Each structure stands twice: as C-alpha cells, then as structure tokens.
C-alpha cells in the first residue's frame, strides 16, 4: 500500500505528523488538504512523531490542529524533530 510521508492537520500549523519513519537528509513530502510541499529532514524522526515545518524561536508556540499544543523550550530548526526534548506543555503544571 502506498504510504504518504507526513500530514499537516491545518494550514496554520508549524509541525506535521510523520506517517512513516524518516532518515536524516531525506526530502519529506508534507500533505495539507490537496496541497503538498517538501521539507528536508535534518535528523532521523520516528513514525507518528512531529517534524518542524519552519524555525520556531525559543518560547514560541508549537501549533497543531491550528491550536497551541505547547511552547518551544529551545530554538527548534526547520526539519528537526519536535518532541518532549524541545517542547513543553503550557497547562500540565496546573494539573
């Protein structure tokens, strides 16, 4: 079966979810609605994890589903893995 590489849930998002594991330096095809574009992966990223579609400043918002899902605790470069090592929840502390 054909597997597309990554899906961006909304045009406002700055991350996409990988539908297959991606090796460093690969051009990742990102699909959003009927449009697609490519981003070069700067590192290996596992299936189901997120890739940055643009640079996100330290303290900047990480956006998926057109909503803020967290804050960058480091500068996140385009094409790198977005996960718990560089992103934190805004609300988990208030639980």
């Amino acid at each position, binding site marked *: 079966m054909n597997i597309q590489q990554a899906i961006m849930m909304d045009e406002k998002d700055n991350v996409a979810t990988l539908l297959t594991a991606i090796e460093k330096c690969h051009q990742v095809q990102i699909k959003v609605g009927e449009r697609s574009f490519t981003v070069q992966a700067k590192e290996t990223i596992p299936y189901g994890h997120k890739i940055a579609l643009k640079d996100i400043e330290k303290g900047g918002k990480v956006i998926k589903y057109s909503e803020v899902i967290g804050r960058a605790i480091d500068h996140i470069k385009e094409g790198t893995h977005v*996960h718990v090592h560089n*992103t934190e929840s805004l609300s988990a502390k208030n639980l």
Partner: protein
Amino acid sequence: MKISGYLRPDGSIGFRNHIAILPSVGCANDVVVRLGRMYPDVRLLSHRQGCSQVGPDNDQTVRTLVGLGKNPNIAGVLVIGLGCETISAEYLAEEISKTKKMVDYLVFNDEEGLMAALPKGAKMLDRMLHETSKMKRVPCDLEQLTVGLKCGLSDTTSGIASNPATGIAADRVVESGGTVIFGETPELIGAESIMAKRAASREVEEKLYRVVNECKERVKTSGGDIQEANVAPGNIEGGITTIEEKSLGSIKKGGGTTLQGVLDYGEIPREKGLFFMDSPGRTPEALTGFNAAGAQILIFPTGGGSPAGSLISPVIKVTANSQTAQRLKGHIDIDVSTVISGDELLVKAGDRIFQKLLEVANGEQTKAETLLYGSISIWNISPLCG
C-alpha cells in the same frame, strides 16, 4: 438522502423499533434474563445499580434509567422491580410514560415467585411486540437525530484521521440542525481551556470547568495521581508531546461547532447542536450515558480496534489503522486508512461517515448490531452506602 424513522407519541423519532425490559434494580436481572430467553428480539437492559445509592449517585442512576426507557429507539418498555429497592419500578414506569410510549411494570414481590411473574411479564411483552409490528417508518429530518461520539483504543492514526473525519461528519449533523454529544471528562484535563473557547455562553464555560475540576477532585480523593492523566510513556513513545496535543486529538471527533452545553451524565439535551457530557472513559458506561441522553446512533472511532456496541443504538465503528481494518473486518464499519495512505482527503472520509450515518438511520445494520454486541453499564460516582 432522505431519512426515515418511527414517529413516537412525543414527536421524537426512533431509528430502531425495539421493545426493552428494564430492571429497576440489579436483583431483578434474573427475571429479565428468563423473559429474554422466551423473547430473543427483546432488548435486555440489565444493570447492577438501583439500590443502596444516595445523593447525587442515586439521582444519576434514576436519570439514566428514565433516560434509557425514554430513548426514541425504544417503542415500548417493561420495567421489572423487586419491590424493596430505592428506585421503584412504578416510579420509573411513570416517568418513562411521560413520552406516552408503551410502558408496563411488574413488581416481583407482588407475585407468587418467579414462575408466577414470568407469564405475567410475557403477556405484557406479547402486547407490546404485537403493537410494534404494526409501526411503519415515516420521512423525517436530521433535526430529529442525536448522535453520540466516543473513541477507544486510540493510536497515532486516531488523532490525524479517524477522529477528525468523525468530526467532519459531526459538523454536518449539527449544520443540518441535529444534535451531537461527546464526552470523556478525563480527556479534557489539561485542555479544558481549548474546549472552553468554543462555549456558547459564560454558563456553559463555567460548567465545563466545574466538571473537569470535579473529575480531578475524584482522582485526588481516591488517592490517585492526577499527573497520570498527563501524557503516558506509551503516548510519548508514539509521538504525543503534550497533554494539549493528546486532548486535541480526542476532542477533534466532536468537530468544530459551538459548544451549546455541558450535560450531566445521562441528561437529555434541551436544545439542538453540540454538547459535552460529563462521563467516564470506560466505553460501556459512556455509551449508556449517550443512550440515556436520547442518542439514536453512536459513532466510535478507534485505532487498535474494539467490538464496542450498544443494545439500544447502532454503533458505527471507524478506523484509520489499515491493520485493524483488516484484522477486525467483522467489527469495523468504515475504513478511513485511505487518509493515511494519501488516497482520500480527510473531508471525503468525513463525508463517507456522514453517508453511512444516514444509511444506518434508515435501517442498515452496523457490525455490532448484527453481532448483538453491547451491554448497559451505569456510571457509579460515589461509594455505596447502606
């Protein structure tokens, strides 16, 4: 596509035409089961509540039992009590009768034992089944439809395909004047502000925060760790980074319309549109709550798969995991793994779910319905007393 259903005396529409036996208390379950052996087409709503409950817990059980009887998919109800329980059969029958549907009740302790109770119950069922057989479908509007949504055994594919595709179908129902109910209060912990932004009024917003806070308090009171509601190690391994991301993936199944209200468990909405129901994550309890609120059809997006069903409402199961779709062919109604493979746009997958919803409303059986998979389980919120 036009839809049709069974017009009830109170103006509501049933998309199924069931006769049900509802025990007012768990002790009466055996009478229900025996009658069920004689009448295999009758829905047996056995449960284990109805006695020794106090305060809000008792209110919740009463509300749920009355709501189950009132569900428009049920044409007639036989309520069976023992005679000594907190919630009497007579009271339930009276409340359900407000819909003017067929209702009868039988109290075990008024009879000379089981063997005397059975023929009496049988006679009541005979009459209701005969009346039901004469009922015919009439054309109706989507405004008459209430859909309940629950996800289960979610995986990476849920948040990006099966839940958002279900959300597109949910939006179509609301835009057509219908009602959609989703729930799972624990899923909102940490993401309540995201949902609150969509509240229709200040009251709705306040109630949303209140039910989430009560949920947190229950975890704390029972000695649990609220952080467990946070992202679990398995979620992190799967690629979920924050609790906001996890919750968003789940609440996407409710679509993007305005939140009209927050319902208590089993509460019937008084208006149309999108509602959140205060409810637990456990599937049979959540589905029972939607049944009691009047949902005639349920949609269940899943990642790893589930046999989930309901005795009152057809359950449409949706997955975007191609392996689950293959492995559980006998349980899954709609395969939207095409969104993952890039062969179908999300909006088209959502449209397929909506079309299936209409077919099911018109009588097409879902997999769980054919398998008669389902049970009643009422959410119990406080320790039993007495």
